[in-house]
């Protein structure tokens, strides 16, 4: 079992003819994902690795059932592309694009809420349910993805796309597979935070533990800590916190757009304190994660 996507999930890629999107399409297809169409204005009638290209999203949804959309268009057009997909009735939108201004992100999240759609990202690598489907560049080429991910009981949520795979790879090497891994995005405002997604993992009986990767900045860890305390979640959570050096460098931006220390609550020290308080184990090193998860699975 899994959350968000499985072997039956159908999706389209918006901006499918772009250089990176072409790659992503091939990698997803090779992994077994069901890509049922792509959209690039003016390119209707072409195909990318056998995937039909349309001018508009509604042309694609008129042809077939579309569960999801990956938005892989430049920042100036990304919000518009997401709105188009939501308006066309698509319920799961993964936004890969980086550098979309916060206002537009807030606008399209609000629009998605009105239409009952869910947004993952922006600035993320997507979602993977090992050996079933991947939606986005997560894991890279299919053979590399198979090296890093295998099915199992651990759900992953990460603000860093690359670290999602690093963590999965470490878990896999220790014999711990994953139910679903979600690269939630590195921007200051993202469609779904840890706390937004954890109820889905909670409802997935095959998920037995959660690993999160976090960074300085933003209230998302505090939100998760509050959720876990209030809801008495059955799921043990292990966290890794990067960017500890940033605590001493307020106002400097490193890493993702959402990563900046503006006040005490943004520091890793304070975040770790809150996570610990909620019973979340914070690993000192990525290689400690499998041990911490195994201890909590018993």
């Amino acid at each position, binding site marked *: 079992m899994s959350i968000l996507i499985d072997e039956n999930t159908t999706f389209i890629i918006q901006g499918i003819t772009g250089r990176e999107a072409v790659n992503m399409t091939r990698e997803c297809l090779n992994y077994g994902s069901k890509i049922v169409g792509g959209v690039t204005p003016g390119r209707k009638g072409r195909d990318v690795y056998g995937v039909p290209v349309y001018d508009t999203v509604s042309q694609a949804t008129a042809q077939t059932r579309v569960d999801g959309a990956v938005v892989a268009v430049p920042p100036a057009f990304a919000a518009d592309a997401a709105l188009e997909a939501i308006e066309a009735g698509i319920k799961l939108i993964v936004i890969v694009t980086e550098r979309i201004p916060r206002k537009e992100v807030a606008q399209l999240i609000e629009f998605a809420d009105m239409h009952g759609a869910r947004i993952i990202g922006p600035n993320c690598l997507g979602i993977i349910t090992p050996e079933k489907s991947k939606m986005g560049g997560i894991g890279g080429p299919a053979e590399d993805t198979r090296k890093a991910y295998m099915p199992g009981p651990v759900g992953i949520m990460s603000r860093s796309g690359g670290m999602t795979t690093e963590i999965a790879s470490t878990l896999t090497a220790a014999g711990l597979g994953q139910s679903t891994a979600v690269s939630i995005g590195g921007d200051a405002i*993202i469609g779904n935070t840890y706390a937004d997604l954890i109820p889905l993992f909670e409802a997935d009986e095959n998920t037995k533990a959660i690993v999160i990767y976090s960074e300085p900045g933003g209230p998302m860890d505090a939100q998760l800590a509050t959720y876990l305390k209030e809801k008495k979640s059955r799921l043990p959570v292990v966290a890794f916190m990067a960017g500890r050096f940033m605590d001493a460098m307020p106002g400097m931006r490193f890493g993702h757009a959402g990563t900046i220390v503006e006040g005490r609550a943004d520091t890793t020290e304070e975040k770790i304190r809150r996570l610990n308080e909620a019973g979340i184990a914070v690993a000192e090193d990525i290689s400690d994660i499998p041990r911490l998860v195994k201890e909590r699975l018993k």
Partner: protein
Amino acid sequence: MRFYEYEAKTLLGKQGIPLPKNGTANTPEEAARLAGEIGGPAVLKSQVLSGGRMKAGGIKFADSPDEARSAAEVILKLEIGGQLPRSVLVEAKANVRKEYYAGVIYDAVAKRPLLIFSDMGGIDIEEVAEQHPDHVARMHFSSLLPLSDYKVKETIASIGVTGGELTGLVPIVTRLARTFLQYDLTLAEINPLAQLDTGRFICLDCHIDMEEEARDRHTALLNELGVKREETRMARPPTPFEIKGAEVDAKDTRGVAGRVVEFDGNLGLIIGAGGGSLTLFDAVRKHGGKAANYCEIGGNPSVTKACELTKLILSKPGVEKIAVMMNVVSNTRVDIMARGVIKGVVESGYDPAEKIAIFRIPGSWEDEGFKILRKYGVEYCDRSVSMNEAARRAVEKVKKG
């Protein structure tokens, strides 16, 4: 991107928010002239981006043009947070009856803009929120639908503000919230928002940050304010090394070799990507390593880009070795990185086997990459060696020399 106070005030003034009579001076004489024009007691404020101006002595009062001249003389030479002021803002001193607070930010939990209002202004809002929560009102508002005045009225009234205070505050606070959306701001704060003896309301101090990624959408405003494209407006200005790093990144559109930040250590870092860099930089510090720089590589940069970044880092005085490390990569290619870094080392006149402390980039095209590394005798490792362990080895090698 942070605005200087005088820029923020110019923007708020354009939006119809009342300000004290003011002007900026770059010399003590200009300050004296401005104080003369104001024609009464004035306040002189250092124009720096960092906070804590009052404590640092960057804000002074003057009752005459002569006093303004000598105050400006001191302020213009005073470094605050490592920065000299850009100018000094000379402003009519206000007779304040009461101070309020109004601020707008994004709430990443609700994913909506959030208006915060308090009738206890002039102090840190976080402090007020902790100690006097009943004096703080909050309202999320839509970023899609137009903001109605009555929503702001309800918010302000919710903490007991009424009468002329309520009707005077509503238009100002509403304008602030609209300005926030109109100009892609990430912080718009008036503190204090002061009521004068006359009953009028006025913005005495403000903080405004614009979204870095939205700068291109507001070039008209930025040109008007005189904000130059190359100004990063981070907590400190970029060093020449960092500017060169940005140039390497800008020259070639393939991939990212960005956000180079200079430190003064002996271990050059070629690290990635966004999250991986943070993790690796922590690991280097944990093992007692002294980094010469921070950087973020990602998005499959070209050989040339990796090569140029390597050369830049090796050109920095005091760099003894470089460590090339990333998390398991998905789209950046191991072989391309190996080529770029080795080329950069060779073109800098060094032996890759000696200069590269460790190469730990597993993932896409790793077998091809490892072939190249073997050929040049570079110590490398695959994903079975953790990022932390790779950083430890690199630090150890530099210590041994």
